[in-house]
């Protein structure tokens, strides 16, 4: 039978979304969707040694758009960037105990926003050499 309405887990993430907000000076930033279509998601990530140490999101959209964004940030926190690129929409949906069929695209968008943020991080690293060298240049790091 098709799922009717949202799971308790979706509603719980919708009412208490994790990691809401923005990050000043993020290592990666991803933006997907379009307000015209009714969904817009932004992800901000901080990376240390290729691991996502902090992640924040902002979402304009329906209940599942907000819940999937929240779930993605929860899944991605502490994840290696290469692992994060492998997160799929079905991972996100199944972690939320499923989504109604017409809402599956929302989970796609949330994973896409994360992937865009990681890609942004990787392209910045390439052009600036930031990332691998950064820990050594970090003053707080050298004091320890």
């Amino acid at each position, binding site marked *: 039978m098709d799922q009717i309405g*949202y799971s*308790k887990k979706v*509603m*719980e993430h*919708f*009412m*208490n*979304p994790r990691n*809401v907000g923005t990050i000043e000076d993020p290592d990666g930033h991803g*933006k997907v969707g379009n*307000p*015209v*279509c*009714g*969904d*817009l*998601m*932004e992800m901000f990530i901080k990376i240390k040694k290729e691991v996502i140490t902090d992640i924040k999101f*902002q*979402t*304009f*959209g*329906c*209940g*599942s*758009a*907000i819940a999937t964004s929240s779930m993605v940030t929860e899944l991605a926190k502490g994840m290696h960037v290469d692992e994060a690129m492998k997160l799929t929409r079905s991972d996100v949906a199944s972690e939320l105990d499923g989504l109604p069929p*017409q*809402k599956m695209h929302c989970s796609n968008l949330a994973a896409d926003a994360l992937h865009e943020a990681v890609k942004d991080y990787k392209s910045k690293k390439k052009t600036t050499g930031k990332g691998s060298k950064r820990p050594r240049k970090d003053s707080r790091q050298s004091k320890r």
Partner: protein
Amino acid sequence: MIWHSMLGQQCGFRDGDMERIYLDYGSSKPIDPRVLELVRRYLEHNYGNPSSLHSVGLEAKRALEEARAKIAELINGENERTIIFTGSATEANNLAIKGAALRNIGKGKEVAASTIEHISVLNSMKELQKNGFILNLIPVDSTGIVGLEKLDKALTKNTTVTSIMYANNEIGTIEPIREISKIVHDKGLYLHVDATAAAGYIPIDVQADGIDLLTLSSNDLYGPHGAGALYVKPGVKLQPVLLGGGQERGFRSGTENLFAIAGMGQAARIAKDEMSQEADRLKGVRDKLIKEILTIEGSYLTGHRTHRLPNHASFRFNHIEGESILLNMDMHNIQVSTGSACSSKTLEPSHVLLAIGLKHEEAHGSMVLTLGRSNKMEEIPTIVKAVEETVERLRKLSPLSK
């Protein structure tokens, strides 16, 4: 109720049961207890088929005709024979439009409707269009009022059916039906009016208004689901859509859904008796609600401010999305409606909100409140507080409100 209190607690809301505030009477209404009493009697005892000639059948037939008369009275129909029962307002709209257009095909192959009609009207019209009819869609202004000059220009002597709703269910705007009727009858043949949202809230007089075909719904009058009616002015030529045993003078075959029809009749009687008092009461609640909600920054009324159903308050909010509004309000145990794309099966925002000129991103942020018998002035502070909390929380989540 269990769902609300459990999740409410989980999600950090006040504990205990929150009183339900139902603000979605436009979607569905509870059956009036007086109607229910009658309906129960019919379900239990009056199982006859009105087409049977024996005494049990005749009793059913009598009930059917009584209901017909009560509905004719509500809209000042010429006599009870003007009322044809259907299974729903959607079916009545299909019968009116397809039935009249096909029966009068010799007089022309053009039909017209406003851009904000109910989907059952628009889809009936589009089916005719697929079959060679010309469809003229009449635009509305930013408040939802049909452009009379545009209507006048669009109609020709070949226009057999023009369909304009009495009042719109999504934005509450009441159309100038009498003026529209004059234009339609100057040029074309029949005016069909979908009065589903309007009946029971504003007085309808099919004779004074100049209406040829009019759609009514049982549940929208606090009757049971499963019955609708089409008023057909004497002399209007119609052909059936459903064929069979020739019930309803051949216009709608199928054994009549007697308990629902009897309930609809009773609901129409109650609506006729109590409408003006209830409408005045609801207008007061509506106006206060509109005034208070519009104090929220970035909130706008949709539809006309004064030419508006007494029970209707509809809004849009900048930077947030309607389905989220609906879900968040439901967590306060307040039920509302939205024209947002995400809440629809088509994933398109409401055609009504686009027709009044809203951009897609604006149409996504709509909230529709339709009041009814349970709503009271005393609920307003709770409603307004819930709307404020909802808008504030969702804006904090939204990247658009930066």
